[in-house]
């Protein structure tokens, strides 16, 4: 079932043509790895899929519904309810503890603090951070920080996880831990789109999209 579809997407930044007429469908349960060299447009594509950026031309559909990029409120709502983000840097708020960081999207969705706290603690436990809920980001290791950011990304039970070089800042051990988490989440049915330039990481993906100079040059679905 189509979860996300982009149709004839073009993106210009200034006069530079970053994405060239891209059409793509992400299906439910897929673990998609987008790979390509630096400057190929893979992150721009990811931001468009994550509704963080607006295409110059073309349409995006989420669960078959066309996204109206002019309706900023609706875009925010979609990002809060349907999407989860993980970046190369953890982007945790330093003033908040681990569980408070995880609670942020839940509180935004309007749920009460008790429930938000419960979800945050469960997610952190699931990602192996039990006992570290009250720690501030600077009291955690790099791998732990990234796991907190994954816990935050899944806090509202999104339909799609969008990850931009999620292991780019981690050592090999933590990279493995994070990739195992992604694999497990995917096995649980979570759809993941991940941008990476590390080909080794694509082994866990169910589909690999190669992009070069703003165009999809290869789309491989593993059986």
């Amino acid at each position: 079932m189509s979860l996300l579809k982009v149709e004839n997407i073009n993106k210009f930044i200034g006069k530079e043509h970053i994405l060239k007429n891209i059409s793509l469908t992400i299906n439910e349960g897929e673990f998609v790895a987008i790979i390509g060299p630096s400057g190929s447009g893979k992150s721009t594509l990811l931001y468009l899929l994550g509704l963080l950026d607006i295409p110059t031309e073309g349409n995006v559909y989420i669960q078959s519904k066309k996204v109206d990029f002019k309706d900023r409120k609706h875009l925010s709502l979609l990002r809060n309810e349907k999407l989860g983000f993980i970046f190369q840097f953890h982007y945790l708020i330093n003033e908040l503890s681990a569980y408070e960081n995880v609670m942020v999207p839940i509180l935004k969705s309007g749920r009460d603090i008790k429930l938000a706290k419960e979800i945050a603690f469960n997610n952190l436990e699931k990602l192996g951070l039990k006992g570290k809920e009250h720690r501030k980001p600077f009291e955690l290791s790099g791998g732990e920080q990234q796991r907190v950011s994954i816990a935050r990304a899944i806090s509202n039970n999104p339909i799609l996880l969008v990850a931009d070089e999620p292991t780019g800042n981690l050592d090999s051990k933590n990279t493995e831990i994070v990739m195992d988490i992604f694999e497990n989440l995917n096995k649980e049915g979570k759809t993941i789109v991940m941008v990476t330039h590390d080909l080794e990481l694509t082994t866990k993906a169910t589909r690999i999209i190669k992009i070069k100079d703003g165009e999809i040059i290869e789309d491989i679905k593993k059986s």
Partner: protein
Amino acid sequence: MNKNFYHIWFISFKLLSERKRQTIVSIFGVGIGVTAFIVMASLMNGFQKYFIEQAIDLNAHITLKVKPEDVPDRIIKIYFGKNILANVLGSRPKDEKDKVVGYKEIIEKYSQNKDFIGVAPHLTTQGIVSYGTTIKSASVIGIDPKLERKTSVIDKFIENKRLDSLISDENSIIIGKLLAKDLGINELGKKVILTTPNGNVHLFKVVDFFNSGITNLDQTRVYVNIRVLQTLLNRPNEVNELIFKIKDVNKAEKLAKIINSETSYYTESWQFAYKNFLQIFKIQNYITYMIVFAILVVSAFGIFNIIMMMVMEKKKDIAILKAVGFEDEDVVKIFTLQGVIIGFLGYIIGAIIGYLLQEWLSGIQLDVEGLIRSKGFILDRSYLYYVYGFIFSIFFSILASFYPSYKASKLNPTDIFRSGG
């Protein structure tokens, strides 16, 4: 708390509480502004209100008098027309006496009007008061004690409440406290000689002191029975001034115009009589409020500074908040709320310090002698200054924090993610 607002409050409070030092400095900045406003406004208005109340009470709400007609330039215009350039070196006053004709009818008429509380006749003149070898000039007012009591609050300012002595003993005189001091009179019962402009002299016994607190009046004013003054001035049954007490002091200007049109006599409201003072007070208020405004603007810059710095430092956090679904207006609210929290806490501190300062100032014993006399600071302890202080502090906080908040809301998260934060 409204759950749709909880996420705003949650982030705002957390961001602010982690910047304790900067936050405390900003809070005290606002607090100083609020304290300055409360204390300065209550001091300034306390003094002004006291002065106006005394002036209104003492000098009648409306005064009717015979306006001098021989104004030199008016006369020149009558005889030579408007197109004349003349330099008048002096003019001799008219021989004709200034008197209010039919004053009894006027008193009768307005005493029955529901807008008026009382009407009293005055015969005023200048005189010389001598005690022993000390001689002082004085403003002599002949009064009818019964009507005067109804029309002014003279009783309030007479130290021993012996106004009726002017009736029982027509040789009685009430003299200003400072005039008595200048003459060397410290106790009642002393005899003074009053010399009127027509050269008549009369011996009076001091029966009371007049002590209004307004230096100018206490230094010059004396009261005698109107009948005695009429005799001394050879003006039997004549008065040259009527004073009116009205129910609503704010209607004085309007009622003065009505009396003027009905009697054709010159009338003056208390506002007109004290317009110079009122004008000075207005300027004084402008200066005070400009100073307070400047203090509040400086404290607003403090808030602006802290919020702007926070926005600059928190770009990554703003980007991630937007990525997880926070809207532009949420971001505006998060940072504006921090400004409002600073403003509110600043107000609380400012109001407490302001209140304590008011308490302290009102307890200070001090001999103030100038335009007014008092034994300390006269404060207007109105709750309205606290209300205005609250409005100003919140208004300035919103004003100062809105721009950085707006800038924060317009940050593009992808720019920040692309640059690696």
